[in-house]
């Protein structure tokens, strides 16, 4: 086939992919800016920002949910890193019995369908007074994020050149000091990557929050879901767009965050 002719099938396939990827997103964007849209009109009848004002009005539901979501996500990152950085270091550098089993334990929340587990966590949390609290939701998100926290920080520590640590030790630095001044800074980009994963995972989490957060904790995904079920497509679309921003940003930069040397060691 001539090079120019080869662009015909190629163009059709790429066009279909563009339609499949961006069509649903375009529909969402249209709904976010549609003030009136009803059958048989193929496009919104009037556009405007009326619903944006409604969503972002001071002390409105959406701003409150956004704040709740961010507080939960940041707390989840802090809780997750606080326990996974030490664990990652130990798994990468120190001798541990049953190391493989320990690594696999962190994978369990991803290896089992989690909905049935959330139901039972909610039941147990109810007895502990943790249902409907931010703390309860943070705990649930932390468990789910641990696999990123532990596996990626283990990989990040494993990718740090051991000779640099030995050099620090040989000029008299204590084990703790060489960790704080040499190992941790070198592993920091990988740990940052795991933090972003944990943050996004928490920000986007729906099912666990649905069972454990009721009735008092409404995160952005829950608000979006409620609006959609109630048929408020504009409100749902606007909240969905807000949730899209961090997802798309991270998708665009994910490879810069996760360097190949760290990627190669994930799960090892």
């Amino acid at each position: 086939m001539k090079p120019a002719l080869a662009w015909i099938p190629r163009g059709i396939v790429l066009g279909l992919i563009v339609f499949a990827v961006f069509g649903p997103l375009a529909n969402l964007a249209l709904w976010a800016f549609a003030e009136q849209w009803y059958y048989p009109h193929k496009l919104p009848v009037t556009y405007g920002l009326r619903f944006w004002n409604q969503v972002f009005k001071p002390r409105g539901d959406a701003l409150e949910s956004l704040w709740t979501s961010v507080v939960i996500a940041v707390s989840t990152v802090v809780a997750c890193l606080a326990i996974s950085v030490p664990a990652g270091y130990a798994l990468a550098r120190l001798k541990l019995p049953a190391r493989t089993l320990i690594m696999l334990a962190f994978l369990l929340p991803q290896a089992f369908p989690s909905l049935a587990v959330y139901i039972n966590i909610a039941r147990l949390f109810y007895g502990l007074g943790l249902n409907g609290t931010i703390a309860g939701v943070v705990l649930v998100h932390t468990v789910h994020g641990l696999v990123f926290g532990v596996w990626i920080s283990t990989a990040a520590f494993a990718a740090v050149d051991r000779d640099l640590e030995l050099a620090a030790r040989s000029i008299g630095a204590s084990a703790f000091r060489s960790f704080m001044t040499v190992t941790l800074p070198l592993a920091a980009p990988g740990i940052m990557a795991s933090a972003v994963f944990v943050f996004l995972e928490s920000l986007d989490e729906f099912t666990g929050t649905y069972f454990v957060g009721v009735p008092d904790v409404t995160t952005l995904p829950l608000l979006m879901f409620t609006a959609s079920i109630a048929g408020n497509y504009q409100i749902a679309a606007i909240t969905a767009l807000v949730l899209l921003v961090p997802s798309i940003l991270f998708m665009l930069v994910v490879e810069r965050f996760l360097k190949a040397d760290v990627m190669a060691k994930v799960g090892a």
Partner: protein
Amino acid sequence: MKESRILPLVLVAPALVTVLALFVYPLGFSLVTAFVDKAGAVTLTNFARAFEFYANDILFTLVIIALSTALVGLLAVAIGGYLTLGENPAAVAALRWLYRWPLFIPFVVAAQCMRTFLAKNGLMNNSLVAMGLLDPQQTAGLLDWRGIVITFVWKQLPFVALLVAGAMASLDRTTIEAARNLGAGRPRILVEIVLPQVRQTLLVGLVLSFVTMMSVLSVPIMISGESPTMITVDMAFRINNYGDYGTANALGFISYALTGVAAWFYLKRGISGGGKP
């Protein structure tokens, strides 16, 4: 040297205890609850009720997830294959830029996009009618099992394709070039040379994807409100309307069992790769 033996355990303990207390324990609780009645006696009535009410939904769930997984696998190999073997740099670059967009989009957002896009008078049908590809009288909504499959594939494909494309990119190119020099076509190189070498990565991606889809509650509720539905919806219904933990956990047990085979692949891979420091 007594300290150095305890220190690693101390460092790992908080993370490990968290998983054990907040995942393994509730998981065990769910397994036990599935097999006991309200009085605490061992029984199979929860399963009897689960099958009596939800046999169709169990089958429906399995078919939807199996179909979605198969489509994701097929398309991920096609995307990875084109990115690896494609000869036109511009087309390869365009595909590489395009396929990843839904990667981190949450399921609720994907469901909301599809809920409007796939409706009878949604943007998809409207665009097809406007392009003259579809008769306005023929339009039909896809908001049933097909919508769920489309949403799952849309959302999960970039993840599996990313893994597969990454594995393909790190292959030794000499065998590919050798096959090409011997006159093998690209589809044949993909199936006979590239695919066997990335099989493990593909399986891992598909199993993780399978487990994820098995836990999604928002998509079946938002895409298709009708019966049959997926067992995640049934579990939520048993809890919210009847506080019926027995039947919900029996359904949960069935969802573990359905993923059991899939998880087995994954654990096998994890052990074979996880022993090395």
